[in-house]
């Protein structure tokens, strides 16, 4: 049986694509490079939108990326159930593309923040979080200047009530996100976006002093193998 294929998207200005591909490989999957200008998903089983400063973050983070030729393919596929994970800039792109509700604003402290952050897993009913247990406390790095999650009160109430909050910051909110929200999912659960970086927490030697990011990749690969 061939390995599950996870597409890793590179926009101009994407930075964590190499890390994302490595994390997929470490978990036993095949990382398939996807190029922003190429409207072809190459038959991948899932897609990872990594962090960075796509298109220089000009206009608004993720605002230009959502119109990339690749996104014309990705948006309908995601709506149809393709598992998609967006971290950091990837999360911002998913919000700009209206695949996830709400938006990411400038950090409350007005500074870029890179730190190893406590996070609680709130929802495991997604293909990206099934290997966690609900309420599990993990550590992942955050590194962003615009990660303050905001949504209008009705949306916020709806995602809280619907179990769409997947991750919450613990031990101090790094950016002023509403309800300490670090990551969310869509109603169907196939699309997950979060500001922290699981791909920087998969090895003992490098990255954050944690390997808690591995479960994202083992989760999705199990899901893909079992379907």
């Amino acid at each position: 049986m061939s390995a599950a294929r996870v597409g890793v998207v590179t926009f101009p200005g994407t930075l964590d694509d190499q890390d994302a591909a490595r994390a997929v490989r470490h978990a036993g999957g095949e990382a398939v490079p996807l190029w922003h200008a190429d409207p072809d998903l190459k038959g991948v089983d899932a897609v990872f939108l990594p962090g960075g400063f796509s298109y220089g973050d000009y206009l608004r983070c993720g605002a230009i990326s959502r119109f990339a030729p690749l996104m014309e393919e990705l948006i309908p596929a995601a709506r149809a159930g393709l598992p998609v994970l967006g971290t950091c800039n990837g999360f911002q792109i998913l919000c700009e593309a209206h695949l996830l509700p709400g938006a990411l604003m400038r950090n409350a402290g007005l500074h870029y923040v890179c730190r190893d952050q406590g996070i609680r897993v709130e929802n495991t009913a997604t293909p990206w979080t099934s290997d966690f247990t609900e309420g599990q406390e993990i550590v992942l790095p955050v590194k962003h200047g615009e990660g303050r999650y905001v949504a209008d009160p009705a949306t916020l109430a709806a995602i809280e009530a619907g179990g769409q909050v997947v991750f919450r910051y613990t031990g101090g909110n790094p950016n002023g996100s509403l309800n300490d929200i670090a990551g969310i999912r869509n109603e169907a659960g196939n699309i997950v976006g979060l500001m922290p970086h699981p791909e920087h927490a998969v090895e003992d030697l490098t990255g954050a002093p944690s390997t808690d990011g591995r479960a994202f990749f083992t989760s999705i690969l199990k899901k893909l193998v079992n379907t």
Partner: protein
Amino acid sequence: MNPDVNLDTVKRAADTPDERQPYAELGMKRDEYDRVKEILGRRPTSSELAIYSVMWSEHCSYKSSKVHLRQFGTKAPQSDALLVGMGENAGVVDIGDGWAATFKIESHNHPSYVEPHQGAATGVGGIVRDIMSMGARPIAVMDALRFGGADQADTRRVLPGVVEGISHYGNCLGLPNIGGEVVFDPCYIGNPLVNALCVGLLRKDQIKLAIAPGAGNKVVLFGALTGPDGIGGASVLASATFEDESQAKRPSVQVGDPFMEKLLIECCLELYQADVVVGIQDLGAAGVSCATTELAAKGTGGMDVRLDLVPLRDPSLRPEEILMSESQERMMAVVAPDDIDAFMAICAKWDIPATVIGEVTDSGRLVMTWHGETIVDIPPGTAADEGPVYERPFHEPAGQAALNASSPADLPRPEDLRAALLQLLGSPNLASKEWVTSQYDRYVRGNTVLAQPADAGVLRISEAMPGAEETTRGIALATDGNGRYARLDPYAGAQLALAEAYRNVAVTGAVPLAVTNCLNFGSPEDPEVMWQFSEAVRGLADACKTLGVPVTGGNVSFYNQTGSTPIHPTPVVGVLGVIEDVAKRVRSGFTGTGEKVVLLGETSAEFGGSEWAHVAHGHLGGLPPEVDLEAERALGRVLTEAAAQGLLTGSHDLSDGGLAIALAEACLAQGIGCTVSLTGDDAFVDLFSESASRALVTVRPESFEAFAELCAAHEVPCYGLGTTGGASLVVEGVLDIPVAELRETHTGTLPAIFG
């Protein structure tokens, strides 16, 4: 188009030999101007004057420092590791298994004072392009920063801007920031030092050089469009010709676009991989002037350039301004005609504008035209390599003897050593720099093994570039400098900076290999500053020889002074080392409980220029710690051999603040306390002296004997001080401080000042 009556052509220059030219406004001396006329056999055109004035500036020509810097070559130690030495964009070092590292540190001091954010950002951008132009993928950056007193008002203006500039530019580039320094001293008020370092990786056999060989090869300018950024003096030329005041008011600090630079990095790497580049040069200081003269001088010898083909962001720019523009994110490549299409296709893929602006010739002349008229016709080597060289006079500063006589031995010592430790630990220079470093991405690219606050940054090589998978190697990098030591004795101060960087690399388990330096001084026209400079260079060159680590390149920054008051002489030294198996790297500080805490090296009462004298008494006098390079070398061997044998569980160098601060930092690393006893008869000296060539390590009890034997074999003094564990730093009979209290003191200072 209409005839350009104001264009200063070669023909016009020949016809109007007596036309007054603004050479003085461009920073040229009369004899330098006369020398240009002698070279050309006529007066220069205004474009030629632009080229000579920037190429012969202190910044580009090293005219005041050259005679001293030669020692880095003449005294260089034998090293098989050095692949490319001084004089290229950056030095290249063999790190084994077919791979090479290129690294360099460079100053962006003055722009960072004028406009902290853009000044610092473009400092990062410039050094990254130097590394790219060697054929390498940039893999990490570091910054050595110095500001005025932390409590001085202007520091609150400059520091946040500098940090934000580095953060924004470096983070957007996707380069991990793995270390550096943040130092405060009132001597830097008005003259902050922003020294940026970049390291890159390349295959040993794929080094690129700044040369333009092969007549008929094309000259391509690619990257950002050329605008009026950073044109210091060119507006003088423009307004001298046009009396157009609007042109004289252009910004002289460049503005950076990290997004363009990120694309430029990926584009260059693809160009290298496709093997379509014969020679390459980044455009930094002096822009097109520097790139064309240097490429031509080192190649077949000639180049024809159509300056009107340079793509402009501002179409009103005059040729003189184009020549001097320091617009960022630009590169110049020499490409064989057959490869031009492939070259252009790769640039198009990355949305990088690229334009053929000229051709390599064998004429021995750099000829530039502007809409068909010849405006430059010079032998390129005369601008690039044959600038003026000055033997500036120097003598010991008038107050030097009195300064050295003002011994710290007479300073009142603290009665309460616990309070003294906390006072030092919370002082701006020793306090946690997390407020700064948390604004930098240290994780991107996934190869960061150690980063700040570790003694040195360590990177894994195997996944840094395709093809490197087989190597187990890693590289370590540290920068250090101590202006107070250098003020007391620039010869020893430079050596102590090298010794500390060398030690910081060795404590991770890496073998120090090579050196880069950034020499920050006051005005070379002040003989007292020039003495500091000459002593520092002599000291550094001698120490590099003894330690066996060659200088691969660097940068000199003069004129860091306000009025007649220069900064402390501040040589900042970067050392690169290699660790054969990066998985064996040693972490900084205590990593487990029940381990033996061991002090390596000898301690004597050395407080001249110390952090304690500075913080407790505001005192600077006496002599800096004694330099013993043989002891340093022996210590380095013990540390690297012990790491390779897996004997060390943690290590940390001793420097500013001595053993007291090293112990506190070791506890803070992972929140593990310790109980230790002092070995000497004077607890104050044991704790706060800054004697060099010392380190604090931990070993498992069962490894101690083997480790002590290793120390004995290298004649490195080794003292068991105690054991790790508990929640407090306990120095028996002297002090007992909970780690939580250490942390509160250590982390509170910078946020309290900078918000």
